[in-house]
């Protein structure tokens, strides 16, 4: 047994990961990292392939080009994306774990509130020993759960999206524009209520801190909103309807319409004076893999969160990254729907996952009860 072996055996996993990452960073800084080489040389056996669940289209492309392909270059591990819907993937993972089968994906790119359910269910590997956590902003690490079951690479805001041609006096200042009769039948909101339930609460004069105990003002606002006969859909529906000129106002994530703006389309966005709901997506590793596969899955998460991959990936998604070294692109400077500074973050609000998840079913069913009558 060599001295190197003895040192390795006595290192804790966290120390080992930390030192590996430091070595990798050092090597990278000096341009020493070559494909398939030194950074992970002394690590557990590499699997031939890692499977990552991802949203399709531009979302999957961004992850592939900016993270997965780069990770493959560095490690030699093929990364394959699985576009199963995130909520469906969650149940597949849970079922696999309950039956002692290997889960279908090594890394689940998920909505953080849904991942919270998996964390509570006990489905997630603890990521607390990943060295990159030290380089992440506080919002990247979930609270209210044991350990670090998932990590948030970025945040996003449910902003008020509008057609500038319909607002000659400038951006609307309040969510109350959703009740303006001139936009009847020309508004898009989410079919689940995500974002609109929260916006309604503040638009109606309620407080975020009153959720979940006192939301009547918000529900009354939604009842008025129902009279506007809006369209309700998922993110991709909103983008499609916008392009088909079916709407003038929408509540959605700006990354779903930045392409339209970049191509000169009639679209802009704002965060109204009342504020807007912000939340996260995340990456997590399901329990149930052999130790070496779990290790490399965690390395993938670690890599995705490090400065350059995080910057490149989030730039491709048009979302603000949560690595401390993330720099907002010039086109999003001073954009309230793309908050990176403390001042900008004051204009948006988060709901703790614990509250959101605990009450989400009630809120969805109440929202749908109002909208479907």
């Amino acid at each position: 047994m060599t001295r190197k072996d003895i040192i390795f055996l006595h290192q804790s996993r966290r120390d080992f990961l930390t030192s590996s990452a430091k070595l990798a960073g050092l090597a990278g800084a000096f341009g020493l990292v070559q494909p398939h080489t030194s950074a992970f040389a002394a690590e557990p056996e590499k699997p031939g392939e890692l499977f990552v669940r991802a949203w399709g289209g531009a979302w999957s492309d961004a992850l592939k080009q900016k993270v997965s392909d780069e990770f493959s270059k560095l490690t030699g591990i093929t990364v394959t994306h699985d576009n199963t819907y995130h909520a469906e993937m969650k149940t597949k993972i849970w079922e696999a774990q309950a039956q002692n089968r290997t889960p279908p994906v090594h890394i689940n790119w998920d909505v953080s509130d849904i991942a919270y359910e998996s964390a509570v269910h006990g489905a997630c590997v603890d990521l607390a020993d990943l060295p990159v956590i030290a380089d992440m902003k506080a919002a990247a690490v979930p609270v209210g759960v044991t350990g670090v079951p998932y990590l948030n690479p970025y945040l996003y805001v449910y902003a008020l999206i509008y057609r500038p041609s319909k607002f000659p006096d400038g951006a609307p200042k309040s969510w109350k524009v959703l009740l303006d009769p001139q936009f009847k039948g020309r508004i898009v909101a989410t079919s689940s209520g995500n974002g609109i339930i929260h916006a309604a609460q503040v638009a109606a004069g309620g407080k975020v801190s009153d959720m979940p105990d006192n939301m009547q003002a918000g529900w009354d606002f939604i009842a008025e909103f129902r009279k506007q006969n809006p369209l309700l859909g998922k993110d991709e529906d909103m983008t499609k309807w916008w392009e088909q000129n079916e709407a003038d106002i929408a509540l959605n994530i700006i990354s779903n319409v930045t392409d339209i703006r970049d191509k000169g389309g009639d679209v802009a966005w704002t965060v109204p004076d009342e504020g807007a709901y912000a939340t996260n997506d995340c990456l997590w590793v399901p329990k149930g893999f052999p130790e070496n596969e779990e290790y490399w899955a965690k390395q993938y998460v670690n890599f995705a969160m490090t400065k350059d991959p995080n910057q490149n990936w989030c730039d491709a998604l048009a979302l603000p990254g949560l690595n401390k070294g993330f720099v907002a692109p010039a086109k999003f400077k001073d954009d309230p729907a793309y908050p990176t500074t403390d001042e900008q973050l004051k204009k948006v609000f988060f709901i703790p996952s614990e509250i959101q998840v605990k009450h989400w079913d009630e809120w969805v069913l109440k929202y749908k009860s109002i909208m479907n009558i």
Partner: protein
Amino acid sequence: MNANSHSKKQFAYPLKWRLFDAIEAIFETVALPKMRAATPYIWLAPALALIGLLGVGMFLMLDASFRELDRSTFTLSSTYSLVNYARLADYSVFKAVLVRSVLASLVVTVTTVALALPYAYTMVRTEGARTRKLLLFCLFVPFFIGAVVRGYSWVIVLGREGLVNDFFGLFGFEPFRILFTPLAVVIGMVQYMLPFAVLMIAPAITSIPKEVELAAEGLGANWRRTIWEVVLPLAKPGIVSATIVVFTLSITDYAMPYMMGGGMYDFVSNLVVDIFLGISDRGLGAALVVVLVALGSLIVTAIFLAFDYRTILRKKTFINKQLP
């Protein structure tokens, strides 16, 4: 030599017959003597297995419907309760969507069958081979195009910048919303269901001898009376089958309400998906599925009873029995 080989060819069983005989022989060898009488029925085994799997699925769904989701662990309870069914009553969305699904499906069914009847009749009775081929072509083309593609085709036609609004624009009308209305959902579903209905009704009309219609006309009936008093009663098995197929497909449809309804006119299937995937409550979703299956089964039973199921299940039509 030639005669011998010809004779051998004549009496040789086809391969599949021999295969079937072999399987039956194996069954008779393995089975107990008392079971041998069941040999011909072994060919029902695949169908029974398929139905059995569906039965198991429904049983599991029924079982889950009585188990409450524990939101602290996101697992279903080990004990049974009626909590999920009580929740279905608590939120008006369930009643609204169930009522909408049933009413819209009835509208779709009546409209589809009403349109399918003349289509099938023309297709069967037309003298022109070209017309028949054209009608058959129009009937089968939609089968090669999935529901999603057809839905998006309707978006192009009915959208704010679609063909219909373009047409009205020629006369100075402002674009108006046709898509994402209940009417759009019904249009999309009728177009989707029409080929199924025609395919169910056409054989029933084919089985009515043309001479019967000629006899009715010879006895003084005009074409309306002939259709009403001769064709429709004799085509009843096909009409009822089409009604049941279209209704059951409609009440469980997901794609058309999703694509054509703009999220405001959900059917039960849309809500089931939202509950299973959106709020992860398998127990509540299962309860809604059970209610949907029970409701659909009740309505189909009512249709059977209303149209005299004995006539529908009869092997030969009245005419076939009477005519040589």
